[in-house]
């Protein structure tokens, strides 16, 4: 899933300077699971904003809504008419959701309440870790299901750098060396031959941005 992290209250408040009616808009999918932008976080942030504005003697109406997903147009149907009543929509979705909202409401100021951080997994309650860089040319078949593009800060495809130490990364002693993990996993599976050959350079053309995918079944329609 996509993991995000809420921006500091001061930064969010600074975006809202001069606004009188604000809608805090949550997203009920990825960012709800990672406890950054779901219904509960919308309630919390809206309350914080109300208190902060009150303390500053400002009259700002802060209201709340959460939709199932901000990355799908149809989920906005329920709030479409309501949005016209606000000066600003503070979206707690990931960057994709914020942009969809901004596209759907071009006359309203749509602002981000989160920093979108990564595609990752839940390690345990309250802990998420990055697993995928969406590089568009997946190497996991070669590397024992451990992504060197994501887990190695240098994204190395041919083995560890000289900075690896006791299985940890040059960048942080807290982080595992991706290539030590890959080596150990493949060694355990008797599949080290997978990484003995020189891996070709990464094809960065595959991730030319912005990317668009059209499902084969819809090709004709799009054309």
């Amino acid at each position, binding site marked *: 899933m996509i993991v995000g992290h809420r921006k500091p209250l001061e930064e969010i408040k600074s975006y809202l300077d001069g606004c009188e009616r604000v809608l805090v808009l949550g997203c009920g999918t990825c960012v709800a699971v990672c406890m950054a932008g779901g219904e509960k976080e919308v309630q919390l942030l809206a309350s914080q904003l109300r208190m902060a504005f009150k303390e500053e003697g400002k009259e700002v109406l802060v209201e709340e809504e959460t939709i199932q997903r901000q990355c799908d147009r149809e989920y906005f149907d329920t709030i479409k008419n309501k949005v016209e009543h606000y000066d600003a929509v503070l979206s707690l979705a990931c960057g994709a959701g914020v942009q969809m909202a901004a596209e759907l409401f071009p006359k309203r100021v749509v602002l981000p309440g989160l920093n979108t951080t990564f595609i990752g997994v839940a390690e345990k309650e309250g802990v998420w870790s990055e697993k995928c860089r969406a590089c568009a040319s997946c190497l996991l078949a070669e590397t024992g299901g451990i992504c060197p593009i994501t887990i190695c*800060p*240098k*994204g*190395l*495809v*041919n*083995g*560890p*750098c*000289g*900075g*690896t*130490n*006791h*299985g940890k990364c*040059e*960048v942080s002693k807290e982080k595992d*060396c991706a*290539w*030590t993990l*890959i*080596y150990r996993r493949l*060694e355990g599976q008797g599949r*080290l031959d997978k*990484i*003995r050959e*020189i891996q*070709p*350079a*990464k094809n*960065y053309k595959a991730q030319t941005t912005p990317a668009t995918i059209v499902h084969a079944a819809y090709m004709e329609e799009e054309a």
Partner: protein
Amino acid sequence: MPMPFAEALKTKEFVVTAEVGPPKGVDIQEMLHNIELLKDKVDALNVTDNQSSVMRIGSLPVCKLIKEAGGEPILQMTCRDRNRVALQSELLGAYILGIRNVLALTGDYITVGDHIEAKPVFDLDSVLLVKLIRQMEQGKDFAGNELKGAPKFCVGAIVTPEADPIEPQLLKFEKKIKAGAEFIQTQAIYDLENFKKFMGYARKFDVKILAGIVLLASAGMARFMNANVPGIFVPQELIDELVAAPKGKALEKGIEIAGRMVRQLREEKVCDGVHIMAIGREHLVPEILSAAGM
């Protein structure tokens, strides 16, 4: 004037290279002095590429200055700051300036340096950089396009014999040789017995090995490296030797230790040469060599 480094590797029993670290800023007096001092005492001078991700003068212009001074430069090239376009362009540039030796490295990560918010590149890695150079020598660029005149380089890479765990490191070492590295320079080594074990393995490959010698300036430096520098292990006996040195004489002891190691490596024919890294004390390299009886 030294012979081409490729020839030295082929004909000499024991080669010596020393590291030159370009300064941060345009005052190059001290560096030029060191180049002058060292150029005829070593087989090649190996110029770092924004070492430790700290911004300084680049390797290429300094290699050119060494060439002009009559020395034999080795261009260190990392993948940290240049994509494959910039790497190839710089290699062609190096060749037309008369530079014939390249040491291919991945490079330290950006955040260990002094511009921690910079964008890290790492388009290629050290293995692919060696491969890229060999492909250019065949008259083709990395994308397969024809070159108008092909360069020819003596290409080296590095290995960390004290890495823990060692197996993934050796896997990469073998790829570097497969990609076409002619010489391999090691991270600093201090434990000769361990290094001999590594050489027992490395001798199976057709590649010249240069042992990395980092001058120990104090017991504190040795302890610091043990705690903080990946792949460096200074044995306790050496630290004790530095501690036992009279006050103010630790550096002299460090020179003696470095000289002793070079001498032993050479006399026992353990490897094909040494690469001396005096890190900011380049002017002491001649003293290390004389302590080694060279």
